[in-house]
């Protein structure tokens, strides 16, 4: 779960990381009132969950009221890479001399947290990591002890940060680590961490991603999740149903159990010349109602011309799946799109007996099921 910038900034500020004065606004009058209170110049920043907001026109500077009105008009209500902008952050524009990068993430290769510092801030840090990896100082942290003060200093000195700034930057880094740990962060980043002419540092942006699996012990962040939601209507629906769902561009809908098997089903659709419309994992042990919800999801996608169900039961039982498919399809006078079903594993024989074959096409193997679904999808285009 990714926090909005204004949410992450609040979390950072509460922990003592310096942030620019800012206010959230959802209409032009609100923007002008906020800017008046903060004092010009201000930055007006779209609050949507996409990267590269600046380049896409989602961040504008305003020197005075007229510019603020223009910027607010332009940004509020705009479509930013598929996301509707309904809120902006009005923020004191920081007069800076330099830009740094600090971040904490989990290094999955090492199985340890890693703190990162770079004097190449203010740019796409992924590009820096790829083109000039030495420009980022990295310090692995033993999670049982947390980041020791010397480690924060070491990362800062290794990165080549000026001595005058070292104390301030290592303090921000330490606080960021503690926050990351306390809030179950997966990533916590400040880019840029701006340096002012009197050698103060200030977090001009704030990124905080929370480990979804840990939200049960972060109730105040879990509440923010509702607010942070947005984007694709179908993906929101998937959230409600609790599915792992990713919408894609194609026309063959895919439902399966287990991430690896569902990905494999997508790959096979592609292999046999079709185009996957989605990734939908019903998870382990899905009961009939969940299966019905999955079909509802995929039918809600206008691009879908056929559906392939691929279930290999371990925990999941074939009879439950068959019941769910029947339930979902029997409510239609006419089945919206052809459905191909392949059942294997636990209770597949029971499932086959239950399955209403007037409503679906049954195939015995994964390959046959995928090919049939791709054929059905193609027939529509002919």
């Amino acid at each position, binding site marked *: 779960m990714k926090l909005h910038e204004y949410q992450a900034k609040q979390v950072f500020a509460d922990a003592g990381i310096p942030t620019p004065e800012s206010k959230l606004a959802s209409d032009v009058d609100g923007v002008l009132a906020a800017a008046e209170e903060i004092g010009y110049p201000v930055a007006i920043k779209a609050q949507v969950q996409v990267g590269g907001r600046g380049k896409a026109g989602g961040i504008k500077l305003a020197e005075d009221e007229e510019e603020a009105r223009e910027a607010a008009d332009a940004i509020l209500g705009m479509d930013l890479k598929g996301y509707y902008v309904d809120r902006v952050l009005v923020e004191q524009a920081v007069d800076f001399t330099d830009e740094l990068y600090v971040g904490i993430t989990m290094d999955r290769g090492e199985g340890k*947290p890693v703190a990162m510092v770079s004097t190449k801030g203010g740019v796409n840090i992924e590009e820096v990591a790829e083109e000039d990896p030495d420009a980022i100082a990295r310090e692995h942290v033993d999670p049982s002890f947390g980041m020791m003060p010397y480690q924060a200093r070491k990362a800062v000195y290794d990165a080549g940060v000026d001595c005058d700034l070292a104390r301030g930057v290592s303090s921000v880094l330490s606080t960021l680590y503690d926050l990351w740990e306390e809030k179950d962060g997966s990533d916590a980043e400040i880019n840029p961490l701006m340096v002012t002419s009197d050698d103060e540092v200030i977090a001009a942006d704030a990124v905080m991603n929370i480990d979804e699996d840990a939200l049960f012990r972060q109730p105040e962040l879990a509440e923010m999740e509702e607010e942070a939601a947005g984007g694709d209507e179908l993906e929101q629906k998937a959230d409600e149903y609790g599915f792992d769902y990713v919408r894609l561009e194609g026309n063959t809908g895919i439902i399966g159990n287990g991430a*690896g098997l569902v990905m494999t089903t997508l*790959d096979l659709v592609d292999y046999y010349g079709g185009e996957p419309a989605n990734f939908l994992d019903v998870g382990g042990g899905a009961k009939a109602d969940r299966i019905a919800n999955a079909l509802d999801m995929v039918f809600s996608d206008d691009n879908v011309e056929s559906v392939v169900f691929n279930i290999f039961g371990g925990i999941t039982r074939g009879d439950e799946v068959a019941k769910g498919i029947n339930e979902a399809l029997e409510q239609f006078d006419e089945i919206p799109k052809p459905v191909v079903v392949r059942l294997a594993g636990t209770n597949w024989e029971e499932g086959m007996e239950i399955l209403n074959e007037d409503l679906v096409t049954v195939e015995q193997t994964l390959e046959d099921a995928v090919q049939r679904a791709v054929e059905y999808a193609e027939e529509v285009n002919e």
Partner: protein
Amino acid sequence: MSVLVDEDTRVVVQGITGGEGKFHARQMMEYGTNVVAGAVPGKGGQDVDGVPVYDTVDQAVEEEDADTSVIFVPPAFAGDAIFEALDTDLDLAVAITEGIPTQDMAKVNKRLTETDTRLIGPNCPGLITPGESKLGILPGNIFESGNVGLVSRSGTLTYQVVDSLTQRGIGQTTAIGIGGDPIIGTSFIDALELFENDPETEAIVMCGEIGGEDEEQAAAYIDEHVDTPVAGFIAGRTAPPGKRMGHAGAIVSGSGTGTAESKINALNDAGVPVGDTPEEVADHIEEFL
């Protein structure tokens, strides 16, 4: 022969009184697994289908001589349950639980360096030596005893590939689901080493997926240390960059590593053929044998 588990393995099930724990303890026993105890805090003195339940893993080890734990404990408490298993000098702990916070697993990962217990998982289907013992949730009926070792990051994909093998009469020594989470205990490399040293294992299947660099590292290891022929499969060729496909680990950063292409190339460079479909993986294994 087998690796890690056989008919003598003595299993304690952590969380045996919960829904999943009870169901799968029964399934394991029906398969022939030697389930000797359960461990659930506060439930000591009860029994599940005649299996005695203890309050702690330590008691289960002391009283019933358990040497392996299978963990069916809800995610909020699973990190703690793994620590308990690691603190009891077991040979093996298998964590089935899905959704354990990553920071908890980072702490477990540190603890692993301090104990001799091997961890498999979490978020995995477990492992099976066909005809002898099954630890976890794998559907026992699709496996056959034989001479192919299998290691996989994905549960249901394992079933798919095993089914393709078994349908052709190709059996397995041991199949190990190592789990798809960002931080796991036993890695591809650990499993490959075990199979390489197992005289019965004549070919190995390795099923990976997008995200992380474990497959690339495994490919380098195979190149240097594995003489047993290996065939591979990589799920997620069609996954778009930046999207998380179910498994926390199955996300492609878009920076060129962790993609299906980089994994397939690395494996091919190490002499490992990678099937376009599960059936093609079985074709390669058939050629090896």
